[in-house]
């Protein structure tokens, strides 16, 4: 099963990367114009394209890209003047920290809210949770982020407005980094919890209606034992699937959240490289997203298989 899934994933990634490579290169403009700006002259653009290797035909550039990839090289960023591999890694670390914290917190809160919603479905606590889910599910991420900045950074002055560390300090400690993570983490959590908890709450409610729960109750098993020993395990499956789908985000970040908070993660880098047509960076991030999507789905299926041995993911 795993081999077959990996093989089909590899084909998907190949198609994805090929499409992005050609579409990015066929978009009007080009990195030379981004670099030269208003000093773009036909001669300067031609000279820069030659230096960047963009004067070769597109199929040749494409073949070279694969050749370099197979040699373990992701290329060199045209605009940021750094090797793409090193660049990706430095941004990846930031994204990984941000999203690992945010997704862990979101999962914990989603389980709590989902359980409450499932248990009290149709009653006022579940309705209140539903209203919260609807409110934040419908609120655009940039608005939530901007409001948090306004309240906690500008008005109250409790937290920094953005960035990753205090630029005034030569050696900012962990506390500074933590302070800069609070608002982005809260934003991502507020965006993620409604989605996860809604799925999980529905799953909990569905499980509670099933025969095995009725049987357990008839046998005198306590409500908390039913909930935590039986229902939780079965209801976790859709949540795991959702988490599997969000796995790539842990690594690639959210373009909007990272941009609003000026947080230097992969999402920010993706947005920028797309805008300025920094092809090597753009294609490398797309490759990473593709890989992580395949891995995330596979992991989700494997975990679901462990949670429910009856599941067949052929």
């Amino acid at each position, binding site marked *: 099963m795993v081999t077959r899934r990996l093989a089909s994933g590899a084909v998907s990634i190949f198609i994805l990367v090929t499409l992005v490579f050609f579409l990015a290169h066929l978009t*009007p403009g*080009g990195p030379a114009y981004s670099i030269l700006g208003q*000093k773009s002259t036909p*001669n300067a*653009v031609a000279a820069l394209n030659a230096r960047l290797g963009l004067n070769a035909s597109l199929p040749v550039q494409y073949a070279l890209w694969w050749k370099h990839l197979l040699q373990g090289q992701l290329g060199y960023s045209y605009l*940021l003047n750094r090797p793409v591999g090193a660049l990706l890694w430095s941004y990846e670390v930031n994204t990984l920290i941000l999203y690992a914290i945010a997704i862990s917190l979101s999962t914990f809160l989603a389980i709590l809210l989902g359980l409450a919603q499932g248990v009290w479905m149709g009653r006022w606590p579940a309705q209140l949770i539903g209203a919260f889910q609807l409110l934040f599910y419908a609120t655009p991420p940039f608005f939530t982020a901007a409001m948090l900045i306004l309240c906690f950074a*500008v008005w109250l002055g409790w937290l920094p407005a953005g960035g990753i560390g205090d*630029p005034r300090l030569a050696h900012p400690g962990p506390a500074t980094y933590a302070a800069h993570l609070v608002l982005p983490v809260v934003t991502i959590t507020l965006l993620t919890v409604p989605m996860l908890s809604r799925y999980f709450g529905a799953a909990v409610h569905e499980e509670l209606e099933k025969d095995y729960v009725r049987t357990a109750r008839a046998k005198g098993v306590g409500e908390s034992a039913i909930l935590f020993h039986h229902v939780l395990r079965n209801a976790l499956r859709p949540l795991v699937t959702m988490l599997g789908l969000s796995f790539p985000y842990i690594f690639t970040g959210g373009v909007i959240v990272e941009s609003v908070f000026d947080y230097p993660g992969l999402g920010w880098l993706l947005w920028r490289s797309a805008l300025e047509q920094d092809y090597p960076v753009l294609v490398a991030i797309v490759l990473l997203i593709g890989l992580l999507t395949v891995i995330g789905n596979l992991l989700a299926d494997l975990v679901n298989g462990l949670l429910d041995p009856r599941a067949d993911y052929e």
Partner: protein
Amino acid sequence: MALLLGAAPAAFAETQDCGSIVIPPGLGIGPGADVTSLNPLLTSSLYNQEAAGLIFTPLLWINRFHQIDYERSIASAVTTPDNGKTYDVTLRPWKWSDGTAVTSADVLYAYQLIKALGQSYAAYGQGGIPDIIASISAPDAAHVHVALTRPVNPQWFILNGLSQLTPLPQHVWAHYSTNEIWQAQSDPAFFHVGDGPLLPQALNIGIDAVFVPNPLYGGTKMHFSRFVMRFESAEGQELQAVQAGDLDMSNIPFDLYGKALQLPGDYVVTLPPSYSWHELIPNMANKATGFFADVRVRQALADAIDQKRIIALAMHGLGIPVYNPVPPYPDTFLSPTARAGQYPVGYDVAKAKTLLAAAGFLPGADGILQKDGQRLAFTLLIPAGQPLRIEIAESIQQDLQQVGIAMKVRQMEFNQILAAMVGQPQAWEAILIGMNLGAYPSGEELFSAGAALNNNGYANPKMDALIKQSTDQPGLGGLFAYQDFASEEQPVIFLPNERYSVLVRKGLHGVQDFLNPLGAWAPEKLYCTPGRAN
């Protein structure tokens, strides 16, 4: 809240160490972008040039009045014994940060590197560099002799050409190939030897560039221990960052100017106008807009546009009208007629209508002027996501409608606009962008027929002759004649330039002197007084 229009007098006796100073790139110039290169030869980005200017002291420091400030230059004198063909530069004693002397070999090395880079050199062709130099030699460690291929206007060559030869540490860089230097342009370790006020400590692309004072800097000592250029992705975010204490200064977007004036604690410094203009570039090379080739149509556009309204509405009153290719501030290079405020164009709707009628345009059924079945209509491309340009375009749109010209506005990514402008004359009709000028505002790259940055097909032999006169003959007569003729010709439709305002945190001073409209910063001018907000 204090609104300062002049440099605040300093009470240096009460100053204190500022600690870290954090500012955004592009301060006082426009929306910021991050620093991606520290090499002054490899990038035309203003933001990178600001950073590189902190590491390397220029051969000639040009002040805001476009005069050489020898106090801040490596050169102590420049002479031209034959008034234009050869130049002798004397260097003053100066040291690199590793203690090695800055010598004429470092100037020669910079020139050789520019030659080796060829078209990859960011300012290739500006001031004739490098092709106009026939030979360059070093009679001794403190003198450089430059011979040109032909005699030129010394003022033009010194300000636009010679000033590019910023000494580079030959004893360090000569160990590397051009390609290695290219690849190291964002590596702060490569730039560990400099002769400017600051040295790079870290460059976190997308986040910040960190500098520390150069301990062997020969000029005035700094009043801070760290200097950080911190990138914010939007002007509004810069303002928030100042309020939150993350930045010490920020540009104030025009649409937030009123709000910034009311902020408690911080204060606003309004700067002199930048040496630039906005321009509407009419494409004469596109058959669909061939009507722009008629000078009367271009003059009518200039007459129809109410620049004062643009300044009032889009720039919150902080701008000055521009009618020719020499911005009014400073008035160093203004022709006598321009200095007197006499321009052949200006806001005059009746005159615009008369000019268009004389050019044969009559109102069509829809009220839009037309001639031989062709409507006087075009699409204006503007860079996406720039509120100021959007407001300028909307104001122009209304003005042109009054005289019977239909203009659509379309936003596009800036690099896509440039690609169309440079290589696809049939893909665009008109473009609204800004133009920054060098220290000597000659037009050989802009309006000469076939010039590198002349992308709209404008060609006029008289203009070519006047531009050549301005660059080749000593004195300002040629420059005056060129600017007056350009004012008549409107090869592009000149539009106002803005005066930026900067929000400054309490206790930080010297902002006016720190910022130079030509882009170079003087960090030693910044100082703090007790009460500085940290």
